[in-house]
């Protein structure tokens, strides 16, 4: 393939990755920012979202759009509810102690993964996309007699992939509005800034924590529902999003929403472009190297503020 169309294809593929990654990472970042809890089980909430989406789509039947729309609502709610319950029954009992919550969420990771394996099974199952017209993209080339349009092999995307990008952008705007423009967002930010002071002002911090943990997991689940018509639901699918989310959150700045989004776009696009032109392994190497560099030269992340 020629360099121009090749680059465009790589960018389009990268943009889909970036969109999903941004949603997942914002969930992780929110939990870390407000609760100061490192949630190792985040990738499993992502996986659970995809698996529940399959289950809902199966149960609803009929036109694929019906099942998908139902999954879009039900999966994040169930996963968010589960996460909030996990917060109240496990993390709260540990007083959100950093080391112990890491161990507890590792445990949660295995519990969710193995229960999924035992019930849903080991295979990758598809959810049908509500729509998915293949859109071939033309390119111009210089032939005898001037420039002309042509359709290179493989240079295409689907309407569904474009919709994923739009949906992710809309949800991210919604999260921003929730945090910046609503009372509940104000309460969350207050809790983030100073837990003790928030408590003194009568904010029910524990309920805020449960809400934030549920919201973070719900965002991961939503991202998974969006991606599952492109990639299948599988019980091991949580590992990659977890790793990439950590990379994104560290590069963007722990707890910074704009930083997380910018880093997600950066990592998603570079992953797409580097893996198309060189190799997917190199893309992972570069992303990890970037994390190391950020940690050495700008430990608070690109957009982060120095931790108090």
């Amino acid at each position, binding site marked *: *393939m020629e360099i121009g169309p*090749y680059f465009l*294809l*790589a960018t389009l*593929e990268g943009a889909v*990755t970036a969109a999903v990654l941004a949603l997942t990472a914002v969930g992780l970042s929110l939990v870390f920012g407000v609760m100061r809890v490192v949630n190792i089980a985040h990738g499993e909430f992502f996986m659970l979202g995809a698996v529940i989406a399959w289950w809902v789509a199966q149960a609803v039947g009929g036109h*694929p759009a019906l099942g998908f729309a139902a999954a879009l609502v039900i999966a994040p709610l169930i996963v968010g509810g589960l996460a909030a319950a996990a917060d109240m029954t496990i993390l709260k009992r540990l007083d959100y102690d950093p080391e112990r919550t890491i161990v507890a969420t590792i445990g949660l990771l295995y519990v969710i993964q193995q229960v999924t*394996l035992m019930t849903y*099974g*080991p*295979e*990758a199952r*598809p959810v*049908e*996309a509500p729509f*998915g017209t*293949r859109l*071939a993209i033309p390119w111009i080339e210089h032939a005898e007699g001037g420039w002309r349009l042509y359709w290179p*092999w*493989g240079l*295409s995307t*689907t309407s569904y992939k474009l919709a994923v990008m739009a949906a992710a952008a809309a949800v991210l705007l919604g999260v921003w509005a929730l945090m910046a423009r609503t009372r509940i967002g104000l309460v969350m930010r207050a809790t983030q800034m100073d837990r003790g002071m928030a408590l003194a002002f009568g904010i029910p911090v524990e309920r805020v924590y449960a809400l934030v943990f549920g919201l973070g997991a719900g965002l991961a689940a939503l991202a998974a529902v969006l991606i599952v018509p*492109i*990639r*299948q639901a*599988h019980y*091991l*699918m949580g590992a*990659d999003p977890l790793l990439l989310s950590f990379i994104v959150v560290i590069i963007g700045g722990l707890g910074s929403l704009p930083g997380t989004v910018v880093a997600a776009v950066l990592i998603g696009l570079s992953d*797409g472009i580097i*893996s*198309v032109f060189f190799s*997917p*392994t190199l893309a992972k190497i570069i992303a990890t190297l970037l994390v190391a560099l950020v940690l050495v030269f700008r430990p608070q992340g690109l957009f982060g503020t120095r931790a108090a």
Partner: protein
Amino acid sequence: MTRIDDRPATTTRRGALRTLAGAAAGAASLPLWARYTHAQSAEPIRIGFQVHRTGIGAAYGRWYDRTTQAAARLINEAGGINGRPVEIVAEDDGTDPKRGAEVVEKFATQHGCDIAFGTLFSHVVIGSAPRAGELKLPYFVVSEGHHVASGMLNRYTIQPGITDVKSQVQAMAPFVTETLGKKVTLVFPDYAYGHDHRDFFSAAVEAQGGEVLAKLAIPPAETSFTKYFPKIPRETEVLYHVMVGPGVLTFVKELGEFFGGRGPELFGFIDSLEAVAIDSPGLEFLEGSHFWEGMPRYAQPDQSEYDAFYRQQVGVDDTGASVSDPTDISTYGHMFGCWETLYVVKAAMEASGYAGPENRPAMIEAVEAMTEMPHSRQHPQGPKIFNGKTHQVFGRQHISQVRDGRLVKVHTTSIEDTFYPDEVDYTTRPF
């Protein structure tokens, strides 16, 4: 919170001795009913089954398990092996080579298995076989990899139930170059099994006067594939694809999206679609494309009575799905290997009068002495010829075409098409 008794839990020497003495007395006084009346001879033959229950091979593992259990049940119903029942001791290896070697060790030292059996993924075989050789544990693999016949492994590792990649691709290359095209691009998983395809298919195509334009290696745990496809050269006439792992459905779907109906001819190994329904949404573009199948997934018009019997016993319907759940698609192109291997084990143990681990070398010699395996209930995939020197079996290969969303067999090779010169003589190696 309640405080649990906070006395330190001490073990005194006297206490420990008392427990030990009690246990010894208990063991010595075990009633006679706990022993086998015919001493050792009625003890079960224990077959360690290394199964991919988790990891990227899990979908295969589930069906390898069902096939193995069905064959073991039939063997036991027919009186077992040498009058002894067969017991399958299954252990998950996580589709992981390191864990695979540990599992082999557990079979030999903890479970007291007579043999180990059943591994599919070639990196697990290559990781486990050396340990089996050290432990002198006969290790029957069902893997398709060329690593057994290449001489890379050892005298204790045998593949008598499934053919290897080298013979498969060599037998099919003429069909590909003659009917589909001569300019071929290969897409394969980047580990031992995929490398067998890369090396032997390239050589076979070139021997046919064809040309391999590009070879695309994809990590077996990959989940998105479009980014690899731009490397497929435009002049490609045939795209040869083989993929494994949980992403196989995504792989073929993205392949279809990428070409949008204008691409090259597709020739795939059924591995790209094992455990996946051919009529899954997004796979319509596969119509007309060709697949290798070890054993045809859909019951064909010329179905043998052995295939019908095997399907019924394992619980697979005429479309290759589970009889209890039509969405549960089997790994039909591979799993017959477990069934056939168990019958080879039975035949070898009976021929050598196997009584216990001390007879392991004699049992391996009995397998090495085997040659023809006729098409039968024991060998439902078809007739086979075993090569005792290379520890590898040879058999017919099938090529199917997707027509109306079904796989229809269009070509069957002969056994002779799959032969190649021996690369090793394991029988000269000491036990």
